[in-house]
């Protein structure tokens, strides 16, 4: 296909035709530009580079930053090697690989199957299936873990109570590696789905028709033409879901801990929770987790930037839909079963556990005894002063993260995409690094970076907000860059010709046009921030606790009723905020399109 070559040619000629406007047209702005770049680099160093460096130093030393200060710093690779040779670390590492590997395999099967059903068959209510199968993306991992603990704990699990009542001898045990894999696979299938569905949608249908005309059956065509063609998308989705699972704390904390299964994330937290805390070891394990993540993210980017051959230049296709006949009710049924397992059952479990005074259910009939239900758990949750504090803190952190992070991402996105200033590559690189750092590692790095400094950020909600800003920087900048690319460069140039300066042009032309993108990015940041657990774990204090952390507290306190009640409260708050921000950003998008 000649398209890539053609594109290269166009970009090359454009690059040749357009002079380097930032430097040649307005040389007098050199100083201002340097100051600007310097300021951005300083902020990014403060947010990203410094904590990471401290993390590396921590991993290479055996001194305690709190007690010893920086003076006692004695770098040595030996410490790092020693940690890697530790049997527990190795166990956590292989557990993580097994849980995420198995979970990814399941996620690929589910995601691929659903994308095929939705894009390529005449299964009824496809739109509903497509929308509903994305719900798992919005469920906080810890809530999912808690719900499945209530459903599938070997003794008191609601599923097992039902099985017992039905007289079936089989018992589920979700406090196991299998349980971990099952929950990972079910909840992270949408990541695979997103990639494969769009690849299937963009595929030239005649590639499959050619196979059918050639004499291949529909089944043969699926495995010799369709799947090989979308292989890059499948691989990209696989790698992404693996990386996401690797960085998840909530699910293994809820399901792995009761069975003494440690993965890297839970092991790192365990190290810092020991007395005395093993911060150096935690830093070393965090680095290990970061390296694995970075390799996988790099591989995923390689796959995505490789020429995907499933699509053909600039042509819109009507995706072929296969007539399944009576089987389409079978595929519809499978979709319903998936939704039942992933959405309905866990929600029911949380509701039952939250409203029941005692979770012990001696038989199935007892489940419907109304006297056993009440609001006692909710009362207990709201009697705890920490509950309201955590909600309030979460909102504060969310708003700070969204506003500061959005503004910073706008500055970075504009500088990288729209100017030719020197140093913009360094800005781009620094702001992209966090993509390869799991949230938990960001938390450990910030802990290292600030705990030793007196009167610093540690212990305020600002350290949480800054950690979130750093952690989600790549996502935000990427979301914003897309909206910059849609604003034609000439719109800006026209404003310059009219005599406006750079700042004035941004204020009067770029910002109004990019408003939907800016609002959408801030919304995204807000939502990501209020549900983040991994990085909060290391940075909260009793005054700055947030919802996700408090939920973990309840869970580890062992009171299932309170945990379930707070899970529901948290889910409800998330749903309301999600709806609200979605409504707000849609309004902004419409306002923006009127401007455009």
């Amino acid at each position, binding site marked *: *296909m*000649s398209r890539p070559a053609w594109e290269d040619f166009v970009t090359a000629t454009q690059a040749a035709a357009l002079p380097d406007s930032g430097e040649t047209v307005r040389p007098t702005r050199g100083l201002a530009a340097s100051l600007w770049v310097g300021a951005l680099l300083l902020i990014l160093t403060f947010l990203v580079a410094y904590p990471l460096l401290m993390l590396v130093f921590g991993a290479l030393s055996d001194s305690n930053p709190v007690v010893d200060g920086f003076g006692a710093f004695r770098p040595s690779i030996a410490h790092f090697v020693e940690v890697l040779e530790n049997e527990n670390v190795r166990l956590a590492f292989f557990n993580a690989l097994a849980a995420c590997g198995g979970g990814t395999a399941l996620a690929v099967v589910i995601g691929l199957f659903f994308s095929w059903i939705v894009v390529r068959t005449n299964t009824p209510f496809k739109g509903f299936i497509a929308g509903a199968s994305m719900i798992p993306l919005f469920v906080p991992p810890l809530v999912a873990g808690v719900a499945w603990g209530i459903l599938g704990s070997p003794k008191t699990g609601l599923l097992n109570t039902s099985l017992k009542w039905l007289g079936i001898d089989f018992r589920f045990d979700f406090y196991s590696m299998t349980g971990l894999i099952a929950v990972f696979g079910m909840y992270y299938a949408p990541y695979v789905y997103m990639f494969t569905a769009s690849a299937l949608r963009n595929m*030239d249908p*005649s*590639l499959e*028709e*050619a*196979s*059918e*005309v*050639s*004499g*291949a*059956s529909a089944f*043969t065509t699926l495995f*010799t*033409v369709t799947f*090989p*063609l979308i*292989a890059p998308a499948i691989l990209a989705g696989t790698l992404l879901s693996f990386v996401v699972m690797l960085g998840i704390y909530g699910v293994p904390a809820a399901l792995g801990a009761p069975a003494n299964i440690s993965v890297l994330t839970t092991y790192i937290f365990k190290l810092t929770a020991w007395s005395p805390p093993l911060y150096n070891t935690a830093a070393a394990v965090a680095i290990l987790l970061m390296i694995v993540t970075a390799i996988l993210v790099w591989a995923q980017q390689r796959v995505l930037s490789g*020429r995907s*051959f*499933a699509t*053909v230049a600039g*042509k819109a296709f009507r995706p072929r839909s296969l007539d399944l006949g009576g089987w389409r009710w079978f595929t519809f049924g499978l979709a319903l079963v998936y939704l039942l397992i992933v959405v309905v059952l866990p929600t029911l479990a949380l509701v039952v556990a939250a409203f029941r005074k005692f979770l012990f259910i001696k038989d199935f009939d007892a489940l419907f005894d109304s006297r056993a239900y009440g609001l006692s758990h909710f009362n207990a949750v709201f009697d705890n002063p920490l509950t309201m504090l955590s909600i309030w803190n979460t909102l504060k952190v969310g708003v700070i993260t969204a506003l500061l992070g959005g503004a910073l991402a706008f500055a970075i996105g504009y500088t990288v995409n729209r100017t030719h200033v020197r140093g913009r590559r360094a800005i781009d690189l620094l702001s992209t690094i966090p993509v390869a750092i799991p949230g938990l590692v960001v938390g450990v790095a910030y802990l290292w970076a600030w705990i030793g400094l007196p009167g610093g950020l540690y212990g305020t909600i600002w350290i949480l907000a800054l950690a979130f800003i750093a952690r989600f920087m790549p996502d935000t900048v990427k979301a914003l860059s897309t909206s910059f690319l849609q604003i034609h460069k000439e719109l800006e140039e026209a404003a310059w010709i009219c005599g406006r300066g750079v700042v004035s042009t941004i204020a009067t032309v770029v910002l109004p046009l990019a408003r939907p993108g800016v609002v959408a990015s801030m919304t995204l940041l807000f939502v990501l921030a209020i549900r983040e657990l991994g990085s909060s774990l290391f940075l909260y204090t009793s005054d700055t606790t947030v919802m996700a952390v408090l939920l973990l507290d309840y869970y580890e306190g062992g009171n299932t009723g309170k945990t379930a009640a707070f899970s529901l409260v948290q889910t409800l708050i998330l749903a309301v905020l999600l709806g609200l921000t979605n409504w707000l950003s849609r309004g902004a998008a419409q306002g923006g399109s009127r401007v455009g």
Partner: protein
Amino acid sequence: MTAALLIEDLVKAFGTGRPAVDGVSFDVPAGEIVVLLGPSGCGKTTTLRCVAGLEHPTGGRISIAGRAVSEPERGLLVSPRERDIGMVFQSYAVWPHMTVRQNVAYPLRHRRKASGDIDAKVKETLALVGLADFAERPATSLSGGQMQRVALARSLVYHPQLLLLDEPLSNLDAKLRIHLRDELRRILKQTGMTGLYVTHDQTEAVVLGDRIGVMRGGKLLQMAAPGEIYNRPADAFVANFTGASNVLRGTVLGRSGEIAMIDLGAAGRIEAWTPQLLAAGDSARVALRAENVRLGERGERNAFSGRVLERRYQGMQTVYDLDLGGQRLEALELGTAARHHADGEIALTLPPETCWAYRDEEHAAA
């Protein structure tokens, strides 16, 4: 001998509204190439896809080599892979994850009748389309023209009963299109393949087709040899679509056999060939090609006097805009020298066999 392809009263309706294919019937004898020609949306591609089995017809019957493959009235529908057909797609549809050899060998591997020497057949077919040296290349490294050759080889390698070609040249650039067009005919004739070819390009249709079927609005207007389509178009649309862009309006004075006499008003009377049963008093349109206007000649029949409004020199030819008794007429003079004046009176002859009269449907309806 049975026709390789027989289509009887084919209907394909998508939902409600006018059917995309509306009662089309024709046959393709073995070894012949039939081209379906028409503007986009005329139903030609839908007809082809019905023959392939990629669309499911809602009425009529399709038979390939004497075997009915689609007859919705009887609930009969044979799947594409059991129709023994080959197909070349507009987008080439060459599988990018395979090499040239793998692409061409694919049908042999996945056919019911296992064929003996796959390698030899692939080699022979690649040589036929001129890609003998490209067998091991990955498909993505090929140019558009080479990819279309791979697609052709892939559809020929198993000697199907019928080859379907869906605008195979329209994604190529102009020069390559002409080259591949001539070569396509050579290859098809060399292999003795029966072909059904769909295009919107009239030159392609004339060069490739043994017969051409012109379609519009889901209906087959005329199916005939290229010479007849060009010289005896069955109706005003066919005439216009094949290039007779001049239209003179008038009233029928009388008709004898296939020759009608028409009053053009101020310009005078014109004699024209007609395939329709025109009667005196009917409104008529006379269609003729700009190339067929003889400038500066005063012939025995259909001699007129016109006025040159504008002369446009185009290098290889010159176009004259003429006024003929208040009606516009375009004339084309071949050659690099323009021989007539840019303005003033001019004698011209419109040979009766190149003037075709049709009932003026618009006018009659008004």
